[in-house]
Structures are given as C-alpha cells and as structure tokens.
C-alpha cells in the first residue's frame, strides 16, 4: 500500500481563525517524540519520513497496517484501507453499520475515502499531544479494527471485501 493512498487527506477547511492555524509539516520536537512513544508502547515501527510512520498489529481477525502522520497542528492515525471496496459500491448495510458504529466508538471514526474503501481514523491535535494520547489512539484503532471486522464482513455480504 502506498503511503500517499493510505494517508491522503484534504486540507481542513475551517472558517476564521481556525483556518490560519492549519499548516502542514512537523516540528522537530514531534519528530523526536514519536519514535520514543513507539518504543514506550512496545510496537515496532518504520519511519518513512520525519512526519510519517508505519506500524501494524495482528488481531484475531487479521493483520492491520497503521499509518501515523504528524503535522504542525494534527496527528493522524489511520488504517486505510480497513476494508477494500475493490471498485464496487459499498452495500447499504455496510454504510449503515459504519455510521451506527461511529456513535459507539470513542476517539475513532469509520469513514469511506475517495476510493470507496472503508478506513478507520483517529485525529488528535498536536498541541498538548502526549504519550497517553498516542497510546489511546493505537489502542482504540487496534481494538475497534478487530472488534468490528466480522460485523463489516457480514454487512459486506457477497460483494466481499479484501482482508488487508
């Protein structure tokens, strides 16, 4: 999976003052901090750039790749694709499940990206970002990815979805 696909985002479009806060890049402190956080969490990781990291885990339902991208203002964690649509429209039950799960999952959200794939994201502000946020994000992603995979497989029905 190419990082550009995994972490493609549109620039946030917030009105007024918030718009001026959005700058892309990563400060030096964060570039030093993130590897230390990975080490403390005990997960292996691959540093692709100073602002881009790849890690992953094996759960009960499969292996999942997590990408972390840091900017001046935000830290993004994502499993993308969580379920690959393979160019087919997602079935209505899967869309409904995704939106209903967004009520129950804390910190994280399920979404459909521009390729039509289902992804699982955590987005946190860089200001005040601490180890507990980092740990919460990885824990949430790994827990929710594994917990809800079978429900998504069922909701995908015969159109299937590639396990990634």
């Amino acid at each position, binding site marked *: 999976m190419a990082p550009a696909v995994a972490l493609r*985002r*549109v620039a*946030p*479009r*917030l*009105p*007024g*003052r*918030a718009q001026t*806060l959005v700058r892309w890049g990563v400060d030096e*402190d964060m570039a*030093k*901090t993130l590897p*230390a*956080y990975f080490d*403390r969490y005990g997960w292996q990781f691959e540093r692709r750039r100073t602002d881009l990291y790849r890690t992953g885990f094996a759960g009960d339902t499969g292996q999942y790749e997590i990408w972390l991208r840091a900017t001046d203002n*935000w830290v993004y964690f994502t499993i993308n694709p969580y379920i690959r649509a393979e160019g087919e*429209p*997602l079935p*209505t039950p899967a*869309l*409904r499940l*995704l*939106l*209903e*799960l*967004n*009520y129950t999952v*804390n*910190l994280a*959200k*399920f*979404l*459909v*990206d*521009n390729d039509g794939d289902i*992804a699982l*994201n955590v*987005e*946190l*502000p860089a*200001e*005040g*970002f*601490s*180890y*507990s*946020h980092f*740990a*919460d994000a990885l824990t949430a992603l790994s827990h929710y990815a594994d917990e809800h995979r079978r429900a998504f497989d069922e909701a995908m029905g015969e159109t299937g979805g590639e396990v990634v």
Partner: protein
Amino acid sequence: MSDDELNDPDDVRSGPGPSALCERLVGMFDDFGWPYERNGPLTLRTHLGGENGTFVALVRVTEHWVVATINPFCARPEGGFGPVALKLMAGANHLANMAKVGIDPVGDAFLTVELPSEGFADSHLYDALAALTHYADQFTIPLLQANRIDRLNGGH
C-alpha cells in the same frame, strides 16, 4: 517530552478534572463572547450560527474527554436514511477533519468532535466549535437533497 513522562510506568494522566475543566470552558465561552447556558453540571448548551441555519450544540466534559455534539444534526427521515444519504454521510467523515458523522440509536444523524481533556487548550474549543459549524453548514443541504432523492427512489 520529558524523561519522566517516558519512564513513568503508571501512565498517570494529569487532567484538571471534569468540574474544573468545565469551569475553564465557561471562561473560554465568556472570553470568546459566545452565548451559552448550562445544561447540567458538566454540559454547556450553545447555538452555532452558520450560513444555512443555526445549530444547537452541546459541549460535554467527561473525565477524559471533551465532546461537542450537534444531535440531531438531521432528524431520522420516515423509514430511516436511504442509500444516497448513507453514502453521503460515510464519505463526509473523510472530508471532515476533527469531526465525525454518524447515526445514533434512534436513527438521527449527529455531528460530533471528541478531544482529550488532558492537554485541552483554548484553541481546541474554538477549533471544535468552528469545525462543527463549518461541517454542519457544509453538509446540511446535500443531506437534505440526498434524503429527497432517497424518497423519490422509493422506500425511504
């Protein structure tokens, strides 16, 4: 990041506590000049004015989170949301930085922002409410249109 933080085996969180943080939020509302009313000891209610409407938002403080929500963002249509509306909302989650779109247990669509209370900054409240206002405004008309299309397609 300090060495203490890295080496602390107990991962002790240093949040201010929900009550103290809620009082801080009240101060932020006052500083920003935004109207609000209390809706419980740890919940504030405010109105967010967008170009396409005014939205009622609740800002709730818990031990670990500050949650700002517009619910209902769009009330459940008769028969529930149809395929076009569901696809629109699922894709909206990709466009919406910070914010999350979903369906609650009674079938209403909601829009929410969740931020950790630890390290909560004044700018976070501003960004959260700005995001809610922006995305509520951005998604309202397309969602109403999607509901209409679903109804025309029948079954919703």
